[in-house]
């Protein structure tokens, strides 16, 4: 038994990171005061989007992206879906969820159903509004485009892993006159969402959504560790750049082990 080549530092970093998360969770459970999160306009706008749909009597469209359940972005999107579906149920607003991945489809259906159940409005839950469109990327894009044109949602929420179809969705949403909130950690798609949507969750903001929306201290604790990790990575980059400039490579050697 041995540690895989080139993974020693990653393993140590992961262990330290996990320990820090567990420590923060236990401190949060004990009621330790946690720092405030900065305002994320994209997440603040979720209520505005749901309110807009309610006032206009039009549905809300939600896409959890085209990634599978093995993609952390999809899991983060499902957390946001839980919140959005519950608010939609509370205000009697129709929510249309379109899925590309068959494994994700029953999960989204269960989340929406659960949300309506928790609000005591299971009779308002319409299973036909949680739809599987197609496993094919562009067939899915066409299906969503058709739904946007036909059903004219007042808000379009696109969160999760997106690839080439991102701009198609965002532009069709704009043409339909929907308020658009998008979020992805796929860096090559972020510029499209920034240019075409009203609000955009950039990278890590997507993963912080569940903590932000619930204000659950335990979840907030993990966000703090995330920030420590970022500071450590930034410090490594700055120090590493300076050291390499002077031909000193020990930091790079350690990180590459």
């Amino acid at each position: 038994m041995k540690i895989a080549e080139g993974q020693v530092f990653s393993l140590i970093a992961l262990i330290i990171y996990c320990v820090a998360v567990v420590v923060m969770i236990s401190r949060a459970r004990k009621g330790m005061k946690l720092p405030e999160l900065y305002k994320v306009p994209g997440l603040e706008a979720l209520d505005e989007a749901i309110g807009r749909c309610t006032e206009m009597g039009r549905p809300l469209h939600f896409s959890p992206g085209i990634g599978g359940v093995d993609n952390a972005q999809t899991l983060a999107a499902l957390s946001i879906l839980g919140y959005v579906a519950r608010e939609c149920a509370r205000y009697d607003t129709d929510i249309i969820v379109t899925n590309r991945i068959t494994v994700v489809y029953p999960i989204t259906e269960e989340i929406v159903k659960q949300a309506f159940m928790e609000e005591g409005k299971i009779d308002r839950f319409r299973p036909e509004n949680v739809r599987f469109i197609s496993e094919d990327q562009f067939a899915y894009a066409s299906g969503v485009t058709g739904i946007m044109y036909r059903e004219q949602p007042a808000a379009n929420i696109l969160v999760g892993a997106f690839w080439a179809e991102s701009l198609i969705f965002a532009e069709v949403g704009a043409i339909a006159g929907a308020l658009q909130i998008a979020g992805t950690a796929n860096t090559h798609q972020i510029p499209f969402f920034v240019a075409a949507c009203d609000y955009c969750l950039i990278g890590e903001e997507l993963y912080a959504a569940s903590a932000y929306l619930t204000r659950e201290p335990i979840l907030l604790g993990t966000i703090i560790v995330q920030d420590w990790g970022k500071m450590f990575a930034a410090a490594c980059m700055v120090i590493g750049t300076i050291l390499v400039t002077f031909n000193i490579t020990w930091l790079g050697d350690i990180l590459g082990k």
Partner: protein
Amino acid sequence: MKQQVPIIIGLVFGMFVIVSMFITGVPFLEQTKDVLNDWFLIAQAWAVAVGVVNLTQIHMRNVNMKRENYGFSIWLIICMYGMAIFGIFIAKSPNHEGWKLMYNDIIAPMNATVYATLVFYIGSAAYRAFRIRSAEAAVLLVSALIMMLGSVPLGTMIFGEWIADAATWILEVPNSAAMRGIQVGATLGAVATALRILLGIERGHLGGVGE
């Protein structure tokens, strides 16, 4: 109980996969990882049936209620089941001429067509973004112009080599720096999310937001 069982299963198998990524030379770990991957593929394949049932229900309802454009629903059902039946009982192989005709000559060009529409969406998105009178939109406009002109021979012909160098600099320096910054944050966020899910703190995917 409904939520605890999936959390326990997730924790046990999730830890297995993580450990097998870092530790080598333990046949039991490697074999179990392969078995788990096979299980995942089988579960994924079975989930297709769930999707087919959903599509059938939605489109049969459209047909029964004679909703607007219900003809497209009939067409979808015919194509979906027609292709499945043809593939399973007649073609039996992806090299069958009829199957290749359906896939290479119908589905692939249709996919390419939808992909190609992106160019128009890029145009309209750019127009809307550049119309906004703000400093950010101005930066976006200037860098997009340099990128476009620097990437085509006509740009270099008119403005000289500097425009191609400027385009490369924008792509490799400020753009790469921003992308890497986002990637670092996103990767740490993904690890934290995975950990929250493994520990059962975040339960959004089980139908509830992190209680």
